[in-house]
């Protein structure tokens, strides 16, 4: 009062107005709705972002939050049966040895002609109420062959599967050649009747079945809806799928989508496996991890993702919150580039393999939610073979190998100091920072001089994928979504000349290439597995990349929410969730 009485008259009036404003503000402070309480049948899921697009060939297909949205709308042709018992955290796990039909009721394969007959499930309806027929598959495949999207993802998996007609000609700069190739579906895929489609392969290739289970690239469009939104300029409705909707036969339908803010799904009333237990699912963008935790704790959200291992660890102790995780297909490894001396020296690579503080990385980097990675493919994938004897933390052995490599106690490595800059993604500093420091300490102890080199994600991607000039780096973001050990090895280790795609270490081994060429067309599973096992052994001996740990993919959620299941895209299927 004293201070106020000293104010000029007009300011005193202003002070009175301020009191009124404060009263108005206090009205706002009172919660205005019952939104704090969990609405029955509703799920609020907080993520780092929401889908930037929904087209399977769209420019944002590589972004995990985009895939999360697509997984709810699309339905695959084939999936995997769930195992009878969940994992130690209660997550339901797929059994990759038991593919099961989804939009396909069944399929036949004729080994003599390399022809697959796909029997389309009857009485399946889309969100728009359209009935699934062979025409929807044909439309989806024709669209894949058209490669008109920014990233020809659907074409890529058909090409990997050796389907006739899916050739590189579609990319020809000669327009006539490209146009002819884009009309080549008749060579490889034919509609037999309304519920039967025939797919022909150039050679026997088991990847077709594996790839049909990859929802985000082989999900089937509701062709009637897509065609209804086609325009003369955009006959394949890329714009519609990227910006408006992804019409399909999945468990959820799009209700509302505001890019950069939220995406809202309603359970598909026509879903052939039964309507989802959760009627409304809202994925909301909350960029700050700390805020996602606060909101989950308040009960206004029931599920969050994208936290650091330490944050998950702290959430584990909180009442009403459960953290569920799965050692699925995410791993941390070290890239050592064969094109950069001294990393072309196998003994030096092995010395580094034995100098790695695996347990410290698990404890410090992942709060114990990881395990040592003992091959170059995910341990959950079929045909995974553990390397024996495993690399372990053994500084004495590392020193001996370093001496054998010609660098006793690290002498001679000084001239390679700039090659021992350990590169990692700067945006992942919170998780990777402690890990790279552990690695630096361990390598310095045996005489290898390491410095740290955090760089932006996009620059890292450019150097990994395009320039392939990362000399020494850690990487935690490669996960083949096609569940096949051979596919994973082709992706990362086969040389470019032999069809390798993301061989970031420039590893070239003619024997390995020859083995893959053989395994790729080997119809006998036992023989194929034997070749794949031998390839893994070679890669681990050479440490084509140095696998460190397989870490858990985790989510934190209300302890009332259950039914979490895992699939190789690492995107939760909201259909499986229930209270």
């Amino acid at each position, binding site marked *: 009062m004293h201070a106020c009485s000293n104010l000029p008259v007009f300011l005193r009036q202003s002070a009175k107005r301020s009191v009124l404003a404060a009263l108005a503000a206090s009205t*706002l402070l009172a919660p205005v709705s019952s939104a704090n309480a969990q609405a029955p049948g509703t799920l609020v899921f907080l993520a780092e972002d929401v889908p930037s697009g929904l087209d399977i060939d769209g420019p944002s297909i*590589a972004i995990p939050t985009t895939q999360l949205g697509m997984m709810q709308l699309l339905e695959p042709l084939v999936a995997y049966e769930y195992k009878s018992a969940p994992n130690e955290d209660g997550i339901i796990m797929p059994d990759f040895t038991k593919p099961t039909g989804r939009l396909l009721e069944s399929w036949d394969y004729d080994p003599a002609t390399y022809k697959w007959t796909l029997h389309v499930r009857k009485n399946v309806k889309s969100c728009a109420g359209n009935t699934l027929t062979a025409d929807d598959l044909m439309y989806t495949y024709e669209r894949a062959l058209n490669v008109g999207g920014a*990233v020809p993802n659907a074409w*890529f998996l058909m090409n990997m599967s050796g389907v006739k007609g899916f050739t590189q000609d579609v990319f020809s700069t000669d327009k006539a050649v490209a146009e002819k190739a884009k009309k080549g579906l008749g060579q490889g895929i034919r509609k037999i009747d309304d519920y039967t489609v025939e797919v022909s392969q150039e050679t026997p290739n088991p990847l077709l079945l594996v790839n049909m289970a990859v929802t985000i690239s082989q999900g089937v469009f509701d062709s009637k809806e897509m065609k209804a939104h086609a325009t003369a300029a955009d006959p394949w409705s890329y714009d519609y799928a990227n910006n408006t909707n992804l019409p399909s036969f999945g468990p959820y339908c799009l209700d509302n989508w505001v890019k*950069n803010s939220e995406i809202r799904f309603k359970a598909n009333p026509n879903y052939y496996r039964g309507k989802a237990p959760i009627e409304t699912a809202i994925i909301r963008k909350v960029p700050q991890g700390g805020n996602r935790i606060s909101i989950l704790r308040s009960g206004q959200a029931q599920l969050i993702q994208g936290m650091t291992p330490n944050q998950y660890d702290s959430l584990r102790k909180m009442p009403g919150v459960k953290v569920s995780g799965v050692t699925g297909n995410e791993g941390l490894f070290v890239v050592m580039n064969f094109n950069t001396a001294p990393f072309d020296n196998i003994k030096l690579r092995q010395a580094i393999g034995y100098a790695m503080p695996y347990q410290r990385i698990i404890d410090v980097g992942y709060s114990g939610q990881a395990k040592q990675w003992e091959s170059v493919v995910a341990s959950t994938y079929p045909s995974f073979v553990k390397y024996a004897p495993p690399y372990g933390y053994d500084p004495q052995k590392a020193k001996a190998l370093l001496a054998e490599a010609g660098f006793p106690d690290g002498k001679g490595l000084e001239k390679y100091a700039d090659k021992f800059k350990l590169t990692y993604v700067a945006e992942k500093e919170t998780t990777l920072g402690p890990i790279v420091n552990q690695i630096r300490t361990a390598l310095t102890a045996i005489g290898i001089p390491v410095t740290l080199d955090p760089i932006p994600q996009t620059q890292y*991607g*450019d150097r990994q*994928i395009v320039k392939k000039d990362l000399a020494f780096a850690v990487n935690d973001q490669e996960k083949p979504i096609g569940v096949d050990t051979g596919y994973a090895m082709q992706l990362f280790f086969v040389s470019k000349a032999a069809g390798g795609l993301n061989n970031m270490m420039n590893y070239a081994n003619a024997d390995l290439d020859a083995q893959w060429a053989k395994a790729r067309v080997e119809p006998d599973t036992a023989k194929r597995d034997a070749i794949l096992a031998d390839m893994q052994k070679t890669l681990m001996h050479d440490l084509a990349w140095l696998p460190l740990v397989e870490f858990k993919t985790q989510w934190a959620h209300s302890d009332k929410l259950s039914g979490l299941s895992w699939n190789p895209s690492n995107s939760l299927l909201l259909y499986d969730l229930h209270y």
Partner: protein
Amino acid sequence: MIRKFILKRLAIGALQMLGLTLAVFFLVRMLPADPVSRLVGLNASPEAYAQAQRSLGLDKPVVTQLLEYLGLGSGPGLLQGNLGTSWLTNASVVSEIGASLPTTLELLTYSFVVTLLIAIPVGVASASNPGKFVDKAVFVYGLFGGSQPEFWWGLLFVLIFFAQLNVAPAPLGMIDPLLIPPPRVTGFYTLDAVIAGDFRALIDIFHHLMLPILTMVFVLSGPVIKMARQSMIRAQASDFILYANAAGLRQSQVTRYSMRAAIAPTITLVGILYGVMLGGAVLVESVYSLGGIGQYAVRSVLAFDYPSIQGIVLVITAISLLIYLALDILYAVIDPRVVYS
């Protein structure tokens, strides 16, 4: 006279925009990474890379790309009001900016209105009562409050008012996720709620804006109070105020005269801050999940989304230039000594 001044300023502004367009176009292309590699993350075959490169138009010479961007090539471009298509979402940049800009403008406008309502009276009171409570409080606030970054205050307010006291809503954007947003007409949530007559949504939107505005006001008030105080002290020391006092005018009338003289620099500062905060509010947007232009800018830069980056820079610059022009006109209205010639 004023019309000539405005036309001249608009012409200069157009030249500035052209220079900026060219600078931004070439500068983003000098960034040390290839946007194509981000696109082909899942599928890195050389054919896929070439396809992605073609889809972005990056296989063409830079001059051709520039002509296309300006609208002097085969399709519509900047001159036709087309800012291009986002490489990340495949949506038009105009529509994306149209979706995110109103959120930031709404946040900033309310924040600056509240800031002015608080900061000017406080600054005036501080200048009128040197060494007294208000003046000391302003000094302490200047040392402590105004010197902390806005994201820190934002997180602190979330912790106190949402997590501890439970009087503020969760930082979940402009509206409760369980409420249906008002139909989009202007893009401004509060205006759209009024147009729709949805007052439940309107209250909820203000409820959600409460903490972001508080955070902005807390940070912005520092320089505005300081400017108001200094300008007021300078005005009070001027000859015409001494004369007014000597003539025996009432204190309130003298204060009003002083304020009129002091308000112009303060308004200028607010205008400049508004332009700066268009992009600078990103941290507050991020803390409160508001999805404004700042967040859109950050996302675009991280994705090397050239068309979006170029569009954002142009739009923010255009708004800033318009604000500065409006300020200059306002200056003449407030201060009769200002004459445009």
